């Protein structure tokens, strides 16, 4: 088991100001001020069918990106996380929402570090250095942990 249930998660959750992507793109400055006033951290909510049309700088103020999967068999969110890490060099948290338990290890390898399963269970990863996805194809041994998860 590579995951732990984080008892602090519920508390951390209360400290987030969750902002949908379109709203963030429309009134970024306002939202930053609002977060400061309310002493909250900004969490950007992205749907797996959104396109990531912003620059890496747009993510400077973002504590966490929450990727909501439109369905359990929608693979787009996997690519979005990889792109956040590789293309936008995002080092904050990336949460997967509405995903299968069986996919958690795959998600982890794409750069996600916390998960809200379809069952509602929420937990975060305790794997170190997750911010750099590893795509080396000769990674069979490394991928073993993905299978051992269940």
């Amino acid at each position: 088991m590579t995951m732990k249930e984080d008892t602090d998660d519920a508390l951390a959750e209360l400290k987030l100001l969750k902002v949908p992507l379109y709203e963030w793109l429309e009134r970024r400055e306002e939202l930053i001020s609002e977060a400061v006033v309310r002493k909250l951290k900004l969490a950007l909510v992205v749907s797996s069918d959104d396109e990531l049309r912003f620059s890496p700088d747009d993510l400077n103020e973002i504590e966490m990106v929450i990727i909501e999967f439109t369905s359990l068999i929608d693979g787009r969110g996997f690519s979005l996380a990889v792109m956040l890490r590789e293309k936008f060099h995002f080092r904050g948290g990336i949460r997967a929402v509405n995903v299968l338990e069986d996919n958690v290890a795959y998600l982890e390898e794409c750069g996600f570090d916390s998960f809200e399963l379809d069952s509602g269970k929420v937990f975060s990863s305790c794997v170190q250095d997750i911010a750099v996805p590893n795509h080396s194809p000769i990674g069979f041994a490394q991928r073993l942990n993905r299978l051992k998860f269940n």
Partner: protein
Amino acid sequence: MYQYSDAERQQLTVRAEQFDQQIKRFQQGQIHPDIFSQLRLRNGLYEQRHAPMLRVAIPYGELGSNQLRALADVADQFDQGYGHFTTRQNIQFNWPKMVNVPAMLKVLAAEDMHAIQTSGSCIRNISTDHLAGVAVDEVEDPRPWCEMLRQWSTLHPEFNWLPRKFKFALSGSLEDRALIRLHDIGIQLILDQQGKTCFKVFVGGGMGRTPVIGKEIASQLTEEELLPYLQSILRVYNLHGRRDHKYKSRIKILVNDLGIEAFREKVEEEFESIDKRNLNESLAYLDQFKLAFKRHNRAHASSPIKQISVDQPQFTAWVKRNVVAHKNPSLRNVMISLKNASEAPGDITSHQMRAIADIADSYNNGEIRVHHEQNLLLPSVPADRLFDLWSALQKFELARANIGEITDMICCPGMDYCSLANADTIPLAKELNQKFESLLTGYETGIIKLKMSGCMNACGHHHVGDIGILGVDKKGEHWYQITLGGQGGLDAQLGLRLGPAIHRNNIIDALKILVETYIDLRQSRESFAETVKRLGVGPFKEQVYDGKGIRNQAA
């Protein structure tokens, strides 16, 4: 052959255990049936008309004799004593029980085999030329690259939930024998001016209900560019491929909708940002892969083959039809036809599997290949041992000399097994065998590639047959649409429709007329395909529908 590392072996066992757990969770109601079906598909398990079907991966069609014996064991222990080779070089078992599948997977895992990603919306088995490494016209052996792609695509974290299935084929020869332009991605190995390996990449090819010939997306990628470029193509497809409609979700639809230029632009934009260093760590393993496939084909003295053939016309016919030249002049590649008159095309009994395994051990170091036309190949047999080999194969009804002929048809499982099928295919194949046996006596009809699918999904490759047959359902009756002039290869072409669909009762007659028309119209040594190319569909259409006139209706 490539040998698995201990880590890979361990992985297969773990995967089988994981699937066992998933089945148990499903049975306890902890996994929704729709989700479970996705998980079982990624482990090769289908639901068919009568029973589940397990498709086992044979990476790029290469099998060791021990693996073939393990497949025979699986057929005996968990199925009805036979298996079926597919058009993507895999093998299917038609009668397993779902609860036994994890146990089957463990038997397979012991010989480095599995069913991972043999179905579902993910990257499927990598296929290639059945003559890889032994072809006379080979530029470069594609198998080390097949192995690289196998490792890259197996359990790929990003691409396990694509819009639809995704198929790769590679070819390293001048002639493409792997249908690379009819795959989601087709890769041709070429050499640049300095003699370095490069890759020409085709994208968006495929058969199915919307057949499309793959378009060239990159003319000459270097070794360092290949994996990042493929990763970019897959990412663009994963993000932008349609997910709203099953029949519009293959990459060919996306490429056609965007146009190849716009699609290429998106791919190249992704390519810029991909971490190439990370991906290319795998190139360090290339030499190891190359070594694994290098054969030390010792030269063998040729013995008087011709002398034997004088006394044995059957042997002569078999050599002519089933024996293929080898890049080493003292070796031969031997095709084993799995198209016997009494069996379904591509079917093989466990008894025959074991026989072939033993024969391979004594004639060619135990190496067996699966051809996408549903036959087997024994590569690198010493030329002076052909007669002995032929005699050995004959004992097991494995020496039918019909490779490439009309009776060597590709055939999907059709109504006998598949729940998608509209029409019979296997019974048609059997009837064709019976009727054509007598018809063809005394005629040299040469190569006629007949490819038959029981529905529009085109598993029987009918779009690229010299003669293609597509089963359609009309008010519960089986009708068949005929196409002519299809072909794979670098200059791939889709077959043209002959005319209205033909009723089950008349289809064999129609095929007979097609062959007779060819015999009437051919010039000197012209093949069926060449005659169709020269004359077009017209004269054949005329003969089938008007001239010799079949009565095209239900009896």
